[in-house]
């Protein structure tokens, strides 16, 4: 009995070892759909749009597709209240030619002008008669205030009795359906062979210790109404501007810029569904990318970029840091 039992176990293991791998086709029948992508910068007078088709490839890696799925010949309009703007077709060289080598087909509407708090509607009539459409509402103009107004320009080494530890920007209104992206940058020029090259450096919120080293931590998407930068971080960013270059006077600066980019609701949701993750460990098998395009896929969204420029403290820039003060302005 004992021997028989062991024999059965061994035989079973041997039997099943014979067919250890099978394959399954993870694909269903291909269904053609159309994709519209259009993002409106409400402060710009030009709007771009791209229309493409869905496609199929052998296997599951879409990167192997080398045929540009762009669709031309569509009639696109964008409407706000009684104003309607028509798109035209255009083409340009690609910045990324890893998949498609042909010129990129796109649509554009020039000379557009939008007003606040009014819905934008896009309609695309495709050559086959199919219609794609979407609506969005652009973000309102924000009011931005700072935790401390420096009388002689921003100086991050200022006494904390006066300004605290953080330089905080606060904005209003806040829409809980919108993501805002704040950033603080230092616009500067660098003398290269006698020419002043304009550059920009982003200031982190703070520096965090990772593997024994301090690394910058930059602001990301927020639904909050404020953003606080450590004065120490501003100071470090300014100090490290030359990145070891001893010729400090080659660096010319005068201002620091606070910028706030606010996405509208569809763009926020789209951004979150494509860039977000719950965590590094959960395993989710499928996730739908948000789309607000009726009759197809893609995204129609808008955003507003607001910039507030603050002057730096000239004495601090010249004497403490040793940089050149920009007398021309920027």
């Amino acid at each position: 009995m004992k021997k028989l039992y062991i024999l059965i176990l061994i035989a079973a293991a041997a039997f099943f070892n014979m067919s250890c791998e099978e394959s399954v086709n993870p694909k269903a029948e291909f269904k053609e759909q159309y994709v519209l992508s259009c993002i409106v910068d409400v402060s710009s007078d030009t709007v771009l749009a791209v229309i493409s088709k869905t496609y199929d490839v052998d296997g599951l890696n879409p990167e192997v597709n080398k045929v540009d799925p762009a669709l031309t010949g569509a009639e696109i309009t964008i409407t706000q209240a009684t104003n309607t703007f028509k798109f035209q077709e255009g083409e340009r060289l690609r910045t990324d030619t890893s998949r498609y080598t042909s010129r990129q087909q796109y649509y554009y509407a020039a000379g557009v002008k939008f007003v606040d708090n009014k819905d934008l509607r896009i309609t695309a009539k495709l050559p086959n008669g199919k219609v794609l459409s979407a609506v969005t509402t652009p973000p309102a103009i924000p009011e931005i205030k700072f935790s401390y107004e420096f009388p002689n320009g921003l100086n991050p080494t200022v006494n904390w009795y006066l300004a605290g530890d953080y330089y905080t920007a606060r904005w209003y209104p806040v829409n809980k359906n919108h993501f805002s992206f704040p950033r603080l940058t230092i616009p500067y020029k660098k003398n290269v062979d006698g020419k002043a090259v304009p550059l920009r450096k982003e200031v982190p919120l703070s520096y965090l210790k990772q593997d024994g080293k301090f690394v910058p931590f930059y602001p990301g998407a927020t639904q909050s109404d404020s953003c606080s930068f450590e004065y120490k971080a501003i100071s470090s960013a300014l100090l490290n501007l030359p990145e070891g270059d001893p010729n400090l006077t080659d660096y010319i600066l005068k201002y620091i810029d606070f910028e706030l980019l606010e996405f509208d609701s569809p763009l926020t949701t789209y951004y979150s569904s494509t860039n977000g993750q719950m965590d590094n460990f959960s395993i989710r098998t499928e996730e739908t990318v948000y789309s607000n395009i009726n009759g197809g896929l893609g995204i129609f969204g808008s955003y507003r970029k607001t910039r507030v420029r603050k002057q730096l403290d000239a004495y601090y820039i010249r004497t403490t840091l040793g940089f050149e003060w920009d007398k021309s302005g920027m």
Partner: protein
Amino acid sequence: MQKLSILSALLLPLLFFFAFTKTDASAAASSGGKLRGIVTDSTSGEAVAYANVYIKSLRLGSPTDNKGYYFIPAIPAGKYKIIVSCIGFRSKELTAEITEGEIKQLNIQLIPGSIKLEEISVLGNKSVRENEADLGLQKISIKEIQMMPTGVEADIFKVLQSSPGVSSTGDVTSRYFVRGGNSNQNLVLLNGVTVYYPFHALGIYSTIDPEMISGMEFYKGGFGPEFGGRLSSVLNVLTRDGNKNSFHASGTAGLLSGKASVEGPIPGGSFLVTGRKSYYARALKKFLNDQDAPFDFYDMSFKVNYANPAILYNGKFTVHGFMSQDMVKNGDPFKEDYSIKNQLFGLNWYQIWASPLLSEITLSSSNFEAEVLPNFSQSKPRNNFVHDFTNRFNFTYIYDSRDELNFGLENRFISTGLKMQNLYGRNISFDQSGYGLTGFANYKFYRYENVGFNLGMRINFASISELRPFLLEPRINVTYKPVPVLALKAGFGRYSQEMITVSNENDLISIFEPWTIIQPNIAASEATQLTLGLSYYLTENFSVDLEGYYKYLTNLSEANYNKYFVTDPDYINVNGEAYGFESLVKVQTSGMYLKTGYSLSWSFKIDPKGQLYIPKYDLRHSLNILTGYNLGAGFEVNATWFLNSGLPFSPVTGFYDRLNINDVWSFQDLSNFKASTIWDRRNLKRLTVYHRLDVGMSKKFTFGFARFTLDASIMNVYNRKNIFYFDRNTGKQVNMLPFLPSVSLKVEL
């Protein structure tokens, strides 16, 4: 209303108590004599649950309950031979003299079999109470748990997954799904106290260490009115009392964790303390698709019991506690950390009264906390807590006719808090507390030899949630034995659930499964289940069980995965339906054990748009074979083989280029597009057939004063490449566990 409910909660148990408690004089007035007592393990003094105590000449008997207690009423006066048997113990025969009008107390000690499979009970798998209306109930002893190959870590949930009607979404998870219900519809109780998150390491293992338990009662459906709050199943895990005779210590070293236990007698009782701590999380790498995760987990339990006849005859007090915590501490500010904690504490007074009344009063608290700390990573912040304070008054009255009446009350004070952000950046914040008062009564007819039926009702006087579906939950179970070897069974019940998890069904592995009371604007979930079955005993040690069920589920609250905007609802209501057929064949001979389960099932869900889909855990066919064999000389081998239909998955129906917003400051020129997948309808196709063979071997030996148990096991012996999922970004096939050997050594002093 609230005050009235609380008042009735306090008064009703007392009313019941005085109505049924008899004095010794009134007990003596009953016809015939009675036999009762507690069956214990002779070596440890531990109660032996589910043993059979049988008077062969009268064909009368009683199984012991989970405290080892048995009671046989209405025995004609005389001298009888009593047979006591239980799997894993040597059967015992003894004589008892029954006197008219008296209760004879006979406490019995059973000697354990020297090895797990050596001794076969006289009645085999069969309960001595042949007309027991126990449809859907599976009693699993610790011996049965030990018969499964251990794998990297012994796990009680893996034992459940080998039962017909229980499915899982992969061998890297302990989560189980019962008869078409979601995993959050399963109630897990530890000594009667709810465990909200009974998992370690992302659900790979259960927190309940088999070392500390004495047995499990698993109700796959048709559970009695004493249980509630879940739609699908109840798992009641009972921990050991600790050795009442001598002090013992044991330590086990495995690949993943080390564990230790200490137990021994105290004046009037015993104690048991167990603990387990992970020390080599890299052992889980194979479970996580070769991803390193700095897991750190522990669990510990204690139990102290006290029974002093001089103070309270036939009474027993128990204090028990259980704590577990799982942590991931990356030590990197740009990676998220997480922590999950369970803390359980319970007080229990079990009393056998002079009249045939048993009472059990339990006060317990169960706290659960989970938190994902994103630090400075892109992960979403989430935290959740549950504070559950429950007291229960349970009574069992046994009539001379052998009928039993179980009745009782349950008070629950629960508060939950949840704060989380979903993938679309939308915040969900919900705090709620509630008081629930539930009464139950279950009349069990055992008076007819060929028929047994339980008529039960669970009454919800006050509900934790605001929109409870119904006041009354009837539970009916019937058994009819047309011939001695055949029992026909049927069951019907209605169930409701007011606590839910906010989990995404598409998560094969999830680090965060928050519990919350159902929101005030949503009706609590409900289920109606009808079960039919039969048990056939070909011989005393060869049984066949067949069961068919139909379950209709409504108001299943599922997290709204498409909560795109703040105003979108957090939950959506889904309806469901499940039906199926199950068979279980058990063969048990001296030294050999074989269990074969097969299930054929269908489950569906219907979303608010009326679209029907198959849930992720729907298994059409499932065959499990579990076997163990005693080779002698301390060697034992065991094996399990699983053969299942492939799990459903959503197929790919095409690809498209979507706008890629890597850098929000420079995406506006629409020059950066990324190829993305388009999924077809949910769970439309199935993966390939799943099969896996696990084998194990254990060897017991003594060295000096210590006893050793060496366990070696291999998971997926023939290295079957079972598909787990297709990576949604790369399309790459990710497989479940490969060939995985493991070994552990246990030392007992």
